[in-house]
């Protein structure tokens, strides 16, 4: 029972960052119809920026976290500006191939700059974990969960409460009508991709100090984000949030009770099961893919 509680706590902490990844990816798919294969690279980029700022430049941990997210937003904006802006009306396969090309380019650039050796990042939290009863959690992980939840809440507020969010929702529902109503579609696409990228970079910057940073870390992150998005239904933000936590629970319990070697296979098994029984995702209100 104690062991089970420990798994639940670990899953909650992991689930927060998974939800961040999933929300970013599902926003980009829903609004822009882009299958974003660079998502995991933004995650890795966030972690590497954290490494550069904290370990190389020696900046404050919390300042670095903020800067890493801002840099992720800027890189996302650059990708949208250079690669996607001109492909706005291209079909989904074309943009997908471009994003795969960008993924390979980004990942190998990371490998070229920082080499394949894994890097670790120091954190300012006390070494002794927080212990409640039989369950313990390190302070870093608790911090990760709090920041992730804050960012999730912030994204919801942005989408549901602001004018920009209203324009994003309108674009999501019907791009042509939104454009006729005076929504600047280019600006919305830019904001969406930058926001999604910023969330992915935030997830990387948060998990980088918990685990280690290495160039191919983005691959698994991308694939897991896809699993989460399929689970929640493509383009469904609430679905992605819940999906992130479900995947984290499956991984944590699967690794704990079945086999730790297959931990990363859980997401893919999930995809296959979902497609077998409910292809539109658990929380889909309508068919979203053509």
């Amino acid at each position, binding site marked *: 029972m104690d062991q089970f509680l420990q798994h639940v706590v670990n899953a909650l902490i992991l689930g927060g960052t998974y939800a961040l990844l999933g929300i970013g990816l599902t926003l980009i798919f829903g609004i822009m119809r882009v299958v974003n294969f660079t998502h995991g690279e933004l995650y890795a980029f966030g972690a590497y920026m954290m490494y550069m700022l904290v370990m190389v430049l020696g900046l404050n941990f919390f300042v670095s976290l903020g800067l890493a997210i801002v840099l992720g937003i800027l890189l996302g904006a650059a990708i949208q500006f250079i690669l996607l802006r001109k492909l706005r009306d291209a079909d*989904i396969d074309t943009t997908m191939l471009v994003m795969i090309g960008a993924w390979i*380019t980004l990942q190998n650039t990371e490998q070229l700059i920082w080499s394949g050796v894994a890097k670790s990042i120091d954190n300012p939290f006390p070494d002794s974990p927080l212990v409640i009863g039989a369950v313990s959690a390190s302070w870093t992980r608790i911090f990760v969960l709090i920041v992730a939840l804050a960012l999730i809440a912030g994204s919801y507020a942005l989408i549901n409460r602001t004018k920009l969010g209203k324009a994003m929702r309108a674009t999501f529902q019907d791009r042509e009508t939104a454009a006729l109503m005076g929504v600047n579609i280019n600006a919305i696409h830019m904001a969406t991709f930058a926001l999604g990228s910023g969330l992915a970079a935030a997830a990387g910057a948060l998990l980088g100090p918990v685990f280690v940073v290495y160039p191919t870390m983005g691959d698994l992150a991308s694939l897991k984000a*896809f*699993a989460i998005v399929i689970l929640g239904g493509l383009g469904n933000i609430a679905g992605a949030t819940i999906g992130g936590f479900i995947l984290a629970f499956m991984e944590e319990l699967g690794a704990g009770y079945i086999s730790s070697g*297959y931990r990363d*296979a859980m997401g893919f098994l999930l995809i296959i099961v979902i497609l077998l029984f409910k292809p539109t995702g658990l929380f889909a209100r309508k068919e979203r893919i053509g």
Partner: protein
Amino acid sequence: MWLKDFYVLHVLITTGIFIIAAMSLNLLLGYTGQLSLGHVAFFGIGAYVSSLVSLGFEINVAGIPIGITPKPVWFAMLWAVVVAGLFGWIIGRISFKVRGAYFVIVTVSFAEVVRLVALNWVELTQGPMALNNIPHLQLGDPATGWVVSFLRKPQSYYLMLVFAIVTYIVIARLVDSRAGRAMIALRENEPLATSVGIDVTRYLVLATAVSAGIAGAAGALYAHYIRIVDPDVFLFIYTVTMVIMVITGGKGTLAGPIVGGALFGLFPEVLRSMSVQPEVQWIVYGILMILVVYFLPEGIVPAVSRWWRSYFASSPPDIGVAAPAGEGMETRRGRS
């Protein structure tokens, strides 16, 4: 003679094996318009199945020992094709309920699961220790003294060539058949194809199974040529290489994967001779892929053939022959 240079031969054989895999991917990507981003899974399954059947294995599943004794290599290769094709059929059945992005993600995930199985099921696959001493292909009967062995490189080269030609013919015949026309109709306009009574999902699943089977054959060929197989055959970067070969050469053309495959099979060797780091090579691949999608969306073969046709059509005044072909080109381009 260049066939005497073993290094050149080795490059040609591995390039040829990749071209076979790329041709199988083209059947899916080019003719049905579905991108399999885990194609290396079928290649790797073919390599592992063929190796395991030819080496023999013994495992315990829930206490019950299951095992086979070593079988001849040609028989093992046959199994590789069947098992890979079967997996292709299953993947097709699962993912073609909903297509497009879902198929891409399912195939990526499938490749990752297979890689993890190869890495973790040590009892069967030896995990990271790899399967060693895989026998090479040998045809004929030692008792009669008539034996063809494919251990050495020149023989392996011809074996690869035969496989490639057979693959080419199989795909050419399939594409030209009723099933192939159905696939192309689907790619061009799915609602219209459905409305004239084409069973969309059936043909997509068929294409996936055949494509996976051919990729499995390429994997088996690879296993018995290199004679060592480890979980790295499932690396994503191999799928990317195949995709780039098909896209650059020209998806949906029979010659496309061959042109693209030759280009990207030999390109790394050129870069290596200029002592470029592998990362830089992949960066160049990535950028090339983006540039091709932007500036040559149909790939090299259609672009060259269109240029060729317009070059020769412009000299004689008779337009009647060139016009229908040009028109067909336009409709296809108009859609993409």
